[in-house]
């Protein structure tokens, strides 16, 4: 019992609950690995979890589904000992526990894989896996590296992982880094693994690989709690789904007995249209054109090799591709963050290849960057200051060299309200918002710039379905108004439903440009893996499509 249990405002409930699960079996008689009972966690001004119950059976994948800010991560941080709840009980393996720190949770067999990986970049994979739990030799005078390596090898053999323990983490791909995180938890003897939005950073192929890993883990008796806001993932991977909304649990369902629409409604609290409708629109002149654009990356390797593209007014051109095939470099060249090594970029009929970034912004080019924390926001600044970014010279906010902060504040508050940024606090620093809410804010700022071209990379990455729906609608509204949209996304559903034309990029070249309705999901996956349309065979790599 923690002190907070005694002082709870919800005292009746928590005293009632004491010892109910003493035998390790719940009333239903099933074997619970984790039982959270009436968890309440408050932050100043917000109730993040309000009397939430969660029962997770051993050897299953349990999805925790909810929108951004629904309290999923908070609940798991309580289980992992990062937060102390104001009320409620944490029962692990039938024993009531009070975790003061992650160390306690780790000792109780709980491992957490965070959304932003908790890895030390310059250290090796082996060092990261063992961090904090290093076996030592010579009376603690040295790390027993041989033992670490052999234990990692055993774990890899057992669960079918393939990682090189001597590789440095910053050189490893995101998929490998995630496996390192899972290995880290297993190395500490975790029986319950919490995965916080594990697919947010993965390519479709890597997601498929993750599902295999989860299956292997549960087959061997591990229990998985899977935090997600994506319906497909919950229905595809989970044995049970608990839905959270506004910090409250709205029930646990069996994925076999429900459908996506019903789940979405439960999650958002109203009916949701899952597929954005993109009706044909009359397209106009080419707003953006590139001719033979070639870009070298930082190492001097050609990342973009002679790309020609045209984006017309009132048109969405989608670029699909596995991350790292040159889309980032292409977008940076178009937005002015990088100078192309060859080729020209034309905007509204003018050659803008040599234009500065500022001049491009001032001429109506909006940009939703790939890495929101690096390029989209200044993390320690509040939202008002971030709302000004890019407009710091516009006559609307900075007439006569003086910034009209009241005007900026009004504008920011409009964005917050329209784009449902939570919590709605314009004075809070950008870094205090969750990733999805940061993204909503950036999208709002860029869309409300009155642009004639929107360059959007992964505009809904990490955003919940309610807001995704809104962002999609707004994007299509801009398109109707005659704005040209260049869209890069690794979400195949998104890019297929929004794009009027779809280009597939592979190793810096467009492999195919097509109408998204004329290509099957399967073929699209093959194109992304580098197969050109004229070499049709169907034994290529997995497309990653799960439905």
């Amino acid at each position: 019992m923690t002190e907070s249990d005694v002082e709870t405002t919800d005292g009746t409930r928590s005293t009632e609950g004491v010892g109910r699960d003493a035998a390790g079996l719940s009333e239903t008689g099933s074997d619970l690995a984790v039982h959270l009972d009436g968890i309440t966690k408050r932050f100043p001004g917000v109730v993040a979890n309000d009397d939430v119950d969660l029962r997770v059976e051993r050897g299953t994948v349990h999805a925790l589904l909810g929108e951004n800010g629904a309290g999923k991560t908070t609940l798991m941080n309580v289980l992992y000992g990062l937060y102390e709840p104001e009320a409620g009980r944490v029962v692990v393996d039938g024993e009531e526990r009070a975790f003061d720190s992650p160390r306690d949770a780790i000792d109780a067999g709980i491992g957490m894989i965070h959304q932003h990986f908790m890895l030390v970049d310059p250290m090796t994979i082996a060092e990261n896996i063992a961090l904090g739990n290093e076996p030592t030799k010579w009376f603690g005078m040295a790390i027993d590296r041989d033992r670490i390596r052999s234990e990692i090898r055993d774990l890899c053999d057992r669960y079918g992982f393939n990682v090189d323990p001597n590789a440095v983490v910053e050189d490893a791909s995101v998929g490998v880094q995630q496996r390192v995180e899972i290995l880290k938890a297993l190395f500490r003897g975790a029986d319950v693994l919490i995965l916080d939005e594990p697919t947010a950073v993965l390519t479709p192929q890597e997601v498929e690989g993750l599902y295999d890993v989860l299956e292997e883990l549960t087959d061997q008796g591990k229990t998985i709690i899977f935090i997600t806001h994506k319906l497909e993932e919950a229905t595809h991977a989970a044995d049970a789904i608990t839905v959270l909304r506004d910090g409250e649990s709205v029930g646990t369902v069996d994925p076999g007995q429900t459908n996506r629409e019903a789940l979405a409604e439960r999650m958002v609290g109203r009916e949701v249209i899952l597929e954005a409708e993109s009706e044909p629109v009359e397209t106009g002149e080419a707003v953006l054109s590139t001719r033979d654009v070639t870009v070298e990356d930082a190492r001097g390797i050609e990342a973009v090799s002679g790309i020609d593209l045209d984006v017309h007014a009132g048109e969405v051109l989608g670029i699909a591709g596995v991350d790292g095939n040159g889309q980032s470099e292409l977008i940076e060249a178009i937005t002015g963050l990088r100078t192309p090594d060859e080729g020209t970029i034309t905007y509204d009929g003018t050659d803008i290849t040599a234009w500065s970034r500022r001049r491009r912004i001032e001429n109506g080019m909006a940009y939703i960057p790939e890495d929101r924390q690096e390029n989209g926001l200044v993390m320690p600044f509040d939202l008002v200051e971030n709302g000004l970014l890019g407009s710091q010279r516009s006559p609307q906010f900075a007439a006569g060299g003086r910034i009209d902060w009241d005007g900026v504040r009004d504008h920011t508050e409009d964005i917050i309200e329209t784009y449902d940024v939570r919590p709605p606090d314009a004075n809070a620093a950008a870094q205090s918002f969750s990733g999805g809410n940061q993204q909503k804010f950036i999208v709002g700022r860029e869309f409300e710039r009155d642009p004639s071209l929107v360059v959007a990379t992964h505009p809904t990455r990490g955003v919940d379905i309610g807001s995704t729906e809104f962002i999609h609608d707004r994007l299509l509204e801009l398109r109707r108004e005659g704005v040209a949209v260049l869209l890069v996304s690794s979400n195949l559903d998104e890019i297929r439903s929004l794009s009027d034309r779809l280009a597939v990029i592979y190793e810096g070249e467009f492999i195919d440009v097509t109408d998204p309705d004329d290509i099957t999901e399967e073929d699209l996956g093959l194109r992304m893996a580098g197969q050109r349309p004229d070499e049709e065979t169907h034994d290529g790599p997995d497309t990653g499509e799960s439905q």
Partner: protein
Amino acid sequence: MRNPLYRMQEAFARRPLAAALGAAAALLLGLWLTPASWQTATLRLAVPIALAAIGGIFAEKSGVINIGIEGLLIVSAFSSIVVVNWLGDAGATLGLTNLWWGMLAGVLVSVLFALVFAIVCLEFEADQIIAGLAVWLISLGLAPFASQILFESPNTANVARFDNVTVPVLSEIPLVGYLLFDTEPQVYIMLVGAVAGWYLLSRTNFGRWVVASGENPKALDTAGIDVHRVRYAAVLLSGVFAGLGGAGFALGTLGTFSGAGDTAINGRGFIAIATYLLANYHPIGALIGSFLFAGLNSMQDMLQTAGYSVPTELIRTIPHMTVIVVLVLVGRTRLPDAAGDHYESGED
């Protein structure tokens, strides 16, 4: 141009035997070509720089930039002289010679200052640079002030210095024996300290925690290790190393403490910071880097003694100019990601 020390590290990693032989040959040639008095002076002048640099590596690798290391050198040098003066030059107290009591006192005072610095930075979330400057400025004022009270002058009295300790047999090794095995205790401490620092940082779990604490403290926290405790330990360790450097320099090389101007330490703590940046936080690299600056320093002393009419002010700038030039040209130093940032568990 790339960092020559960094390139050396890479060469050692790729072809260890050839690189070691090459380095040894270059070293022996250098030793054969240069006067022995210059070599000995260089080693002795390297003591405060090398030890302060190794201490600074631990603090900064853990995420706490300790630019107060100059201040730690000053207070440890001063207090070691005071204690020896108080106990008496010769003789021993409680079975330990008075010089070693001085050494101990210097280290203790330095650790005490480091502790205050750590508390201010870690508990009260003070800006590390400002707090570090405060440690330096306080030391810079306090040592001459205390000296004025105790000795009625900013300069302390003279005390006895450490004698040479000659290691039998090893000191007979041609070319290097006289240099490495017939020298003063503080030089031994420096050589052993560099190897021990490297071992601690790269081969023990504490060392890995220090690195993780400076790169991604949240990763260390979620791995169940208390970040503050690791940072306290690292900052206190920087106090130990700087204390050994300051007291060793005072008792082995100077035999007195001059509090005038920039004091007897004269910016060596800041040169130490440049040295470890140059060495990309490698303790052995910092040792080699300290030879570079100490070598220039002793060359300047020799030129002055030889009566060359080069303005001393100009000569004095040589080490500092080298620092600037080297740091500008190098640019391969990788600062720990979280250096200078405060970390509090449970905050996002």
